[in-house]
């Protein structure tokens, strides 16, 4: 038997011999299901490609993203500047590569801030019920009632425009849907026999939440987060466009579009190239999210 076939049978065995083998086996089966969906697989490739580009941007870039060249400003795409130059003669291709870092950085920051908060608030409210549920959900409703971009605008305007504040502003408006989702999942789980069994073993409420309930909320949350990444990218770009996100000269895609707006008819590439980058990144994450839903959502299996 060849090495790969051996590994495969080790992974899909019905009688795993250790904790690690059981876990890897389940991950392998999910991977097989994921691979069968070509669009989702494409989304994964796009997302991975963006992550790789963000890491190795300095090696891929042909120019310094901040280096100005006023003699060659607003040049059309050519051999030296593959995607043209902007109004200060900076290379758009290099700026887009570095912009990946800012955009993905913001997305990751928002997700890290938002997903745990939503999960904890939602699971706690759903499991406890009664007045804790009512209080937590009304707070969630209040945050949900704010229009997302407007609250972010107000927040950034009140503090100081910048990357960190943009992240906080997006995070503030992004967590309520996760809390709602986690609560809905929790309510379907909390009266099951395995939760009753955990209670009868003497498990404390936090222990039941963490060990029994949250693992089952996690898959739908991951799907939702992945689908939301595109809207986080769009909100970040929107804030950048309005001058409230990353500040110049940092190469943020939204602010790049904002500066290109002035030349959109004569020098179309200045605004179009970052727009395409936003489009491809959002689409990639959307496809990835759809694929993950097919794999992770237990109700569809």
């Amino acid at each position, binding site marked *: 038997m060849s090495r790969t076939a051996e590994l495969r049978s080790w992974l899909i065995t*019905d*009688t*795993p*011999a*250790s*904790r690690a*083998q*059981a876990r890897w086996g*389940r991950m392998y089966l999910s991977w097989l299901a994921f691979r069968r969906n070509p669009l989702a697989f494409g989304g994964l490739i796009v997302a991975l490609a963006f992550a790789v580009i963000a890491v190795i941007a300095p090696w891929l870039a042909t120019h310094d993203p901040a280096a100005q060249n006023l003699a060659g400003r607003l040049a059309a795409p050519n051999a030296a500047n593959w995607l043209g130059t902007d109004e200060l003669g900076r290379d758009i291709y290099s700026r887009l590569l570095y912009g990946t870092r800012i955009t993905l950085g913001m997305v990751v920051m928002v997700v890290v801030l938002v997903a745990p908060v939503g999960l904890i608030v939602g699971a706690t409210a759903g499991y406890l019920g009664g007045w804790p549920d009512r209080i937590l959900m009304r707070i969630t409703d209040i945050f949900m009632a704010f229009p997302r971009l407007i609250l972010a605008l107000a927040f950034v305007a009140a503090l100081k425009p910048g990357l960190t504040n943009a992240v906080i502003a997006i995070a503030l408006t992004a967590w309520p849907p996760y809390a709602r989702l986690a609560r809905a999942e929790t309510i379907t789980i909390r009266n*099951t*026999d*395995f939760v*009753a*069994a*955990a*209670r*009868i*073993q*003497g*498990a404390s409420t936090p*222990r039941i939440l963490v*060990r*029994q309930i949250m*693992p*089952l909320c996690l898959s739908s949350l991951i799907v939702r987060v992945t689908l939301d990444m595109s809207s986080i990218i769009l909100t970040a770009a929107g804030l950048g466009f309005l001058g409230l996100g990353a500040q110049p000269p940092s190469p943020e895609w939204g602010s790049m579009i904002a500066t290109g707006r002035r030349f959109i008819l004569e020098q179309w590439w200045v605004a179009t190239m970052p727009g395409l980058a936003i489009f491809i990144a959002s689409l990639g994450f959307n496809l990835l999210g759809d694929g993950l839903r097919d794999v992770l959502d*237990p109700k569809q299996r």
Partner: protein
Amino acid sequence: MIKVDNLNVAFGDVRAVKSASFTVKDRETYGLVGESGSGKSTVLRALSGLNRQWTGTIAIDGRPIGPVRDKAFYRQVQMVFQDPFGSLHPRHTVDQILSEPIAIHRMDDAEARIRRALDDVGLGPRFRFRYPHQLSGGQRQRVAIARAIILEPSVLLLDEPTSALDVSIQAEVLNLLARLRAERHLTMILVSHNLAVVAHLCDRLAVMNAGAIVEEMTVDDLRRGEPAQAYSKQLLRASLGYDRKMADSLITFE
């Protein structure tokens, strides 16, 4: 061992259990039988601490216990649920399921305890790292029983432990329970609507109808087919077989 006196449980206006009283002796197996909705499972959930809205007295080992239980109580009293598909966490391996109670009660030597519990219920180490979806119904129920006995309780509450299994597996699980009872000197309360199961495992039983205990009797009375109350007679008749004549003769007792 277990003494229940004047137990009442109400859900809103519905009185699910009406002043139920019974006593279970040490190492005895006591059956609670009745049709669906007769309140037998509700008695068990009040006993186990899952349902806290009850009034009356429940005493275990002579000590009265309140609605909220401590960890020591759960070391002493454990429960097996009806549906083996719902009582195991779908994302936990058998190993994780059995590790959980050991971790909660900070017991030592988890490794040996898990292995022994699996052996005790006749599963063996092959099953240790499987997920519930890789097990049959009977195997799942064995895992649920292993989870209950791993804390070495002296009282085991059984909520229809075999009604979700097919007949041949039912017998295996009942024999397993009988063996564990003998080996571990367990006191058990068995809730069932199946009189054959109750006759197989129990010493004494109580017949419940509409939330009240109608009659208490020994299994020998049941085997001889000599219940005193009309309702118990009808229940016994219904359990023996089902035809048109029998169905027409059924009446509703309140």
